[in-house]
């Protein structure tokens, strides 16, 4: 029987078809090149944007915030045993419910979790900055400044003074530039603040910060956590929130459930806290995916068209090949291979093309706190581009090839 030697005659034929019609091949490959380049480029750009916008979210928001949610008293306490009366009260927030009990233990527990990178206590206080008769409402955030800096990159925003100075000064305070200008204070000056618990304290300005958000600059200040406890008239172990950063912030929602279960307090991830921003980001990703995929699809139609044309031209040759014993799957292989070769060449040039575009765009300075255009070589987007490129070219080849495989040679020879 036949078949002791395997000759790859199918590829030989498809390669010959490609090399003898270079112009058509080049046009089809160029379509794929453009499609792939735009697909990867646009998706890398979208990835850069969302990374940038996530980064700006994480300047104010931790990946996960652990806190005690307000608890409302149950309006009806049913009778516990026969003879006692059920108790009805007005539902209201239970006082003292906002604090985390035994925060050191909770903190230690959180830090033990393998996916937790930073866990740091926080006490937020609503305050008035007093300057003579003017009072400016704002928020003083009581933090362990070294850990908070790791989490929110505060030092990047410092324009005067330093983080270290706050650590060294028990009643020190880092204020936003907006607050400073309204109060007309500079580093070294004193400021009087009054808390919502009506505690007044004189603080020393040890530095100023400027973020990209002017509202933050006009209201926010960082103080040592102990000062915040004093402003709230709380004990030295009082903690209202624990901020947690995890290794992979995309998985924060899953971790937050886990942490909530572990600690018994509410753990809110950044996605839940910033739903609008997250939804907008998702919308942008979908849109860009949709547009770039359609461009890739158009490139696929280019290959489809050219193969259809080739097959119509070569219908006699397909018939004789089938007469000589080539099977349907040989014919499919010939034309699918042709499509894949065209697609492969197109993909390679597309990768070069989009790498060049990313190279130049990443060196464009756009200013603001964005700096250089936020685009990098995204391996995931490259992988997806190659994968979709191959899928599209496969089907662009498969459908015409199947048609060719179904050619009835007799009907061709009888014409």
């Amino acid at each position, binding site marked *: 029987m*036949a078949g002791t030697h395997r*000759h790859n005659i199918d590829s030989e034929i498809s390669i010959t*078809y490609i090399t*003898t019609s270079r112009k058509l091949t080049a046009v089809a490959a160029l379509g794929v090149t453009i499609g792939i380049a735009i697909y990867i480029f646009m998706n890398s750009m979208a990835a850069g944007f969302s990374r940038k916008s996530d980064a700006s979210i994480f300047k104010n928001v931790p990946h996960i915030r652990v806190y005690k949610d307000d608890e409302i008293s149950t309006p009806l306490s049913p009778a516990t045993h026969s003879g006692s009366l059920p108790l009805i009260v007005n539902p209201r927030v239970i006082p003292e419910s906002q604090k985390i009990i035994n925060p050191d233990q909770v903190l230690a527990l959180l830090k033990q979790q393998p996916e937790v990178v930073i866990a740091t206590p926080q006490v937020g206080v609503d305050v008035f900055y007093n300057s003579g008769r003017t009072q400016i409402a704002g928020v003083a955030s009581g933090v362990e400044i070294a850990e908070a800096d790791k989490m929110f990159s505060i030092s990047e925003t410092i324009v005067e003074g330093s983080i270290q100075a706050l650590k060294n000064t028990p009643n020190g305070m880092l204020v936003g530039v907006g607050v400073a200008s309204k109060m007309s204070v500079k580093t070294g000056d004193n400021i009087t603040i009054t808390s919502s618990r009506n505690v007044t304290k004189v603080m020393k300005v040890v530095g100023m910060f400027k973020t990209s958000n002017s509202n933050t600059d006009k209201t926010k200040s960082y103080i040592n956590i102990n000062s915040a406890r004093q402003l709230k008239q709380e004990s030295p172990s009082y903690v209202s929130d624990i901020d947690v950063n995890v290794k992979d912030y995309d998985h924060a929602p899953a971790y937050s459930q886990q942490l909530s279960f572990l600690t018994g307090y509410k753990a809110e991830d950044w996605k839940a806290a910033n739903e609008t921003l997250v939804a907008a980001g998702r919308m942008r990703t979908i849109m860009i995916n949709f547009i770039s995929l359609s461009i890739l699809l158009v490139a696929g139609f280019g290959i489809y068209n050219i193969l259809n044309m080739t097959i119509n031209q070569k219908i006699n040759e397909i018939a004789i090949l089938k007469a*000589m*014993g*080539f*099977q349907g799957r040989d014919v499919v292989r010939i034309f699918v291979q042709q499509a894949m070769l065209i697609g492969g060449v197109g993909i390679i040039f597309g990768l070069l093309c989009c790498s060049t575009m990313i190279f130049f765009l990443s060196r464009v300075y756009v200013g603001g706190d964005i700096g250089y255009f936020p685009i990098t070589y995204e391996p995931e987007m490259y992988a997806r581009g190659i994968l979709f490129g191959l899928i599209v070219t496969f089907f662009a080849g498969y459908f015409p090839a199947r048609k060719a495989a179904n050619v009835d040679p007799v009907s061709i*020879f*009888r014409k």
Partner: protein
Amino acid sequence: MQPEIILQADKIGKYFYDPEKFRVLNDISFQVNRGEFVTLVGKSGSGKSTLLYILSTMDTDYDGLLTIQGERITGQQQQRLAALRNEKIGFVFQFHYLLPEFSCLRNVMIPALRLGKYSRKEIEERAYAKLKMLGLEDQALKLSAKLSGGQQQRVAIARALINDPLIIMGDEPTGNLDSKNTGIVFDILKDLAHHDQQTIVAVTHDNDFAQKSDRTIELQDGQVISTRKLY
């Protein structure tokens, strides 16, 4: 010695359905022995080409029974039929159907590469030998499109011969050739039958061609009217 039966048709019948049901072949039965050069003749519409395509295994829509070298062909899978054609049947058509992008040599090699019985080097040598036998050794490396009609038809014959097929089937193999080339092609086919014991079944409407063959089967209105036509 009893001659070996290569091809056997038993009550082959076929209908055409377009534009209306019509019986083109009616219980055709005959057999062909090894080394015979048989021609199928008949007026146009007599069903001779239809019969040839059934014999060639490409048309599977018929009644009756077809056997090639003792193997029942009727009802076989397309895949098996393709492999069988590759190994056992060589085709020569009125038109050469060469692949214009390939050299003559590679055109001849294609069916052998598909079969995979020999190494590439052996196939190349064999293809070259076939071309030489047909007087085309000088054209071997030229693109097939650059050759004259007669030469192209001879390349097509070389391609039909490359796997040493049991049967060579021709559909008007000299239909497009002038009398000189017709003579050459006929002599080649006759030599193949008588010298190399290959079986040849060819449809023709050229009476001279038919007359010189070993045996002529004549069809009329889908019936065999003679399996041994005398001139």
